[in-house]
């Protein structure tokens, strides 16, 4: 990390930011700095992801705290918006315009001349594989095409900060893959990309840096590995399938690192909860040999279980 980069303010920062709608708290006392690169915002529906992005985009005023965008308060600083691209979750376009007209009109706000607007609009449509449909009215686009044209308007002016709310929702697998690659490339170019989703594997495919949001709070943030390290301080689940599960259960139930042992519905699977997974795995070897363990996995190994675990806390 360069010294200059270390001293620079993060492109996007929340400082004790809260937002509530009447009695409902949508985002609660969030403090976080988003560095350049892709950051995944994970959470179930209603967790506060969209509110987070709208606060970041300066489209909502924080009820409390501050949100800074490119060194300025996000709320009330439209002068920085030409450096920001927002792809909202809901449809947001004029259906009577063609895809090209839609993008060109929006690019005019960003200060380019007509030729540049058209060039950039076509380039953005090309990036989302919509160039062939540029002269069709947006109203006639399929769900996936609408998603892509929304993404195109967000990237057309080459913003430094991109805020993408569920960008691959409704896309077919081929376009989903393309958009995931596009987002990864945008991150590699040094842009700050915040991408929200409630589908974990989508985010995993785009980035390793994630923030987990639930009930308006940031539950955890960092690398998936960091979140797993956090997990190791807490009960860890291991599923074991053995030829003699009763013998295996009898062998391990008394271990100091085992919290609980449960039999699965068919009696073949054993679910073990351990407070110290490293010790448990170290001690398991001999017991596993004796009871004929044929299969073993930890549900906590994937991001889904991390998310479930943290949400359930």
């Amino acid at each position, binding site marked *: *990390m*360069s010294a200059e*980069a*270390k001293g620079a303010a993060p492109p996007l920062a929340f400082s004790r930011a809260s937002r509530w*709608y*009447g*009695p*409902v708290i949508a985002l609660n006392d969030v403090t976080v700095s988003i*560095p*350049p*690169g892709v950051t995944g915002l994970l959470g179930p529906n209603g967790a506060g992801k969209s509110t987070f992005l*709208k606060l970041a*985009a*300066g*489209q*909502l005023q924080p009820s409390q705290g501050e949100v800074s965008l490119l060194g300025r308060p996000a709320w009330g600083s*439209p*002068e*920085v*918006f*030409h*450096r*920001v*691209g*927002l792809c*909202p979750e*809901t*449809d*947001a*376009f*004029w*259906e*009577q*315009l063609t895809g090209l007209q839609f993008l060109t*009109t*929006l690019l*005019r*706000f*960003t*200060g*380019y*001349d007509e030729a*540049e607007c058209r060039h950039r609009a076509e380039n953005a449509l090309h990036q989302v594989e919509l160039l062939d449909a540029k002269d069709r009215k947006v109203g006639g686009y399929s769900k996936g095409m609408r998603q892509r044209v929304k993404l195109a*308007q967000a990237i057309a*002016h*080459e*913003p*430094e900060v991109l805020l993408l709310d569920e960008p691959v929702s409704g896309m077919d697998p081929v376009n989903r893959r393309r958009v995931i690659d596009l987002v990864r490339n945008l*991150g*590699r*170019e*040094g*842009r700050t990309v915040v991408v929200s989703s409630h589908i974990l594997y989508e985010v995993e495919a785009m980035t390793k*840096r994630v923030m987990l949001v639930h009930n308006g709070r940031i539950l955890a943030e960092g690398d998936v590995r960091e979140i797993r390290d956090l997990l190791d301080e807490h009960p860890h689940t291991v599923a074991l399938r053995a030829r003699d599960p009763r013998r295996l259960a009898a062998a391990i139930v008394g271990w100091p690192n085992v919290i609980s042992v449960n039999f699965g519905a068919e009696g073949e699977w054993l679910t073990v909860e351990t407070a110290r997974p490293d010790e448990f795995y170290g001690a398991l070897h001999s017991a596993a040999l004796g009871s004929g363990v044929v299969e073993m996995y930890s549900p906590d190994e994937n991001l889904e279980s991390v998310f479930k675990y943290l949400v359930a806390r």
Partner: protein
Amino acid sequence: MPIYDQGYRRYEGRSPLHQIRFWPITREALRLILAKRAFLFLLAPPLGVFLFYVGRAYVVTRFPEVGRVLPSDGRMFGEFLNIQVFFTIVLSIFGASGLIANDLRTGAILVYLSRPLTRRDYVAGKLLVPLSLNLAVTLVPGLLLYVVCLALAPEQFAKWELWWIVPAVVAHSLAASLVVSLVVLAISSLSRSARVAGLGFAGLYFGLEMVRAILQNGFNRREAALLSLQADLQALGVALFGVVDRQLDIFWGWPLLVLVAVALGCLAVLRSRVRAVEIVT
């Protein structure tokens, strides 16, 4: 994380924050409205009225005896503009009732306001659409009519006593166009449907006019004119152009006050409704 070592790609466009940053909004909306052939037909009646008044001006200036029956001074402009105000209503219903409603329905307002635009810019860009259309059927033909009269009878219209006609045409056209535009835009912001907004605007305008007619004719209350937007605008025209109208014979300050209050009310509605994110509590 190594990503801190990567640099930004700087913005290369020219400054977007020029004085008329809302112009793309107006431009695109006018382009879409004027591309509709049906809408262009709506411009025919006001043009027809204008041509009728040009003919009338010709007749009254060429045949002075007709001028004894039909006024050929400032009152002619007052009558003309009061007719044209009706067309501003029609144009606003068909051209402007969906301006904000459609953006709210489609969510496009969020995309607009994520650009380097303030909410004030957004409203200004939208307001300029009906304002342009309305001025095109009030101010422009009003001034053209004056030019025609001046050309036909310079000895009559170039007199110092009639200096006030041009400022009166400008004032009445601006007042009527601005108030009508603000009302239709405010109503548009209260709905997500252009049709509902259009019906709401028409209902409000003609409904209040009906109430005025009932109260004035049934109870002989001249002040009832203040209830109707149309009567307020006409009363202002009566005062500006010296047209004789017994029903609108009220002190000009009152309708002016009502119109200012209506305009401020509309601005308050727009201020509360024009948001990128609709907040439901």
